[in-house]
């Protein structure tokens, strides 16, 4: 009997603790902090969501630090706010569906993300910072010059990307067999293994990959989809940060910082 009542007491304590915790949860929304007139989810940090790896925009270097085009630009924003950038690696679905931003997981998303109508419905995009095209990567010497050459063949795409959506549009018409991969790395590995004949992704991503594996792969087709990348913030949730990103971008384009970053990661100057 003694044990019995002890268990009950413990149960009571747990229940009360749960009550206290659930009451405490509600406070988070009001606990936002400010830096330079901009709301941030964490004090002294510009928290940025991305999905790794996506070189040259976001990837880890040998020491495990996240580097890339996006990182450098967001660093400019963070510096302007007088805070540090903190990068969170999270599945791309959460980023593009706006849920990561809605849930207050991060202040901004910077993930080599194309601005699309659907995405604009769920988050606010800053001005475009990069013009991207989709490209077809094959092993050197393979005879695939266009989607027409790939009828009935397996083509790799990355889940939740615009390249996947582009290929999906032609799946029926051209008789393609699309294989969806979770990560860029898995898509690349499958192409290298010969599990797929070709792979579609953003051109700068393939350029970077070819640079790392000289002679093994080539881009045989480019699909100009008029895509532009944009950074985003929570829908209607942070106009101050949105303005700040736009200001920093405009300033960087004016004073040449943008060109320097572009050349550093893409390997050439941006087209005027």
């Amino acid at each position, binding site marked *: 009997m003694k044990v019995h*009542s002890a268990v*009950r*007491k413990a*149960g*009571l304590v747990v*229940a*009360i603790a*749960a*009550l206290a915790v*659930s*009451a405490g*949860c*509600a406070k988070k929304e009001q606990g936002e902090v400010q830096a330079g007139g901009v709301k941030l989810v964490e004090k002294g940090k510009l928290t940025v969501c991305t999905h790794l790896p996506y070189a040259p925009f976001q990837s880890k270097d040998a020491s495990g630090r996240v580097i890339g085009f996006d990182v450098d630009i967001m660093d400019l924003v963070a510096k302007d706010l007088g805070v540090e950038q903190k990068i969170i690696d999270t599945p791309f*679905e959460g980023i*593009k*569906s*706006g*849920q990561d931003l809605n849930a207050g997981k991060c202040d901004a998303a910077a993930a080599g993300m194309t601005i699309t109508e*659907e*995405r604009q*419905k*769920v988050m606010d995009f800053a001005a475009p910072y990069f013009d991207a095209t989709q490209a077809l990567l094959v092993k050197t010497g393979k005879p695939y010059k266009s989607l027409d050459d790939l009828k009935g063949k*397996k083509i*790799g795409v990355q*889940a*939740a990307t615009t390249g996947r*959506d582009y290929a999906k549009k032609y*799946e029926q018409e051209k008789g393609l*067999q*699309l*294989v*969806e*991969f*979770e990560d860029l790395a*898995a*898509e690349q*590995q*499958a192409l290298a*293994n*010969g*599990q*797929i004949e070709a792979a579609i992704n953003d051109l700068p991503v393939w350029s970077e990959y070819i640079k790392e594996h000289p002679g093994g792969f080539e881009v045989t087709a480019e699909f100009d989809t008029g895509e532009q990348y944009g950074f985003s913030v929570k829908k209607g949730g942070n106009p101050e940060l949105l303005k700040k990103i736009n200001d920093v971008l405009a300033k960087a384009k004016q004073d040449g910082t943008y060109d320097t970053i572009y050349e550093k990661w893409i390997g050439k100057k941006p087209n005027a």
Partner: protein
Amino acid sequence: MKLRRRQRERLSLWLQYLAFVAVIAVVLLAADWGRLREAFFRVDIIESMFPTIITVALRNTILYTLGAFAFGLVFGTILALMRLSRVAPYRWVATAYIELFRGLPALLVLFLVGYGIPIAFPEREIPGGVFGSISIGLGLTAAAYMAETIRAGIQAVPKGQMEAARTLGMSHFTAMRTIVIPQAFRIVIPPLTNELILLTKDSSLAYVLGVTAQTIEVTKFGRDTLNDRVNATPLLVAGLTYLIITLPLSQVVRRLELRYAKAR
């Protein structure tokens, strides 16, 4: 005021009920139901997911699960027999295998099967494509768990059974195959069914292999629809779809356990 022990106990019990109800009420009241419905229960999206989620996605989930289960069962039985073998190296190999594969995440094993084997043997491929890879990938891990379950089952069969069979002139192998293992399996059916339920959910890991529209399973289908519609409703639908498999299975386990308890 001094309460008697009985009263004290009753008071404490009521306080617990009260706290429990209060927690639920706070959570329910604090949640923003309008936003939740908008994010997780859009009827038009639910409609758009049928019938593909059943005819393709659920079908594949079931196929992957059964494939992995069959592979795990056969391999797990072999491992269990090795564990109980009188030949020491068999025991060592089986023990090492079980310890290793119980400790590795299924995701990692699946990745190694899906990408490691093609790298190691560039000229060959696993038969059956995604189905073959996932049957082996998840089956390898499942075998380690099942081996321990089956071993326990074999050991639970009274020694007298084997001794009697040997006395009647059966070889060790024949006695094992026709007398002991059938009885052992009756004992381990409930835990093995649990393993089947776990595998059902693990089959969602198929996404690491890269799947096509024909080889897609329930979770990936839900995530893809989420991507297309930029709404979380498909995740809820996909989650509930698993219950179509797992709820009847749980029921089966409960029945079997009851029957087994009676038989004893």
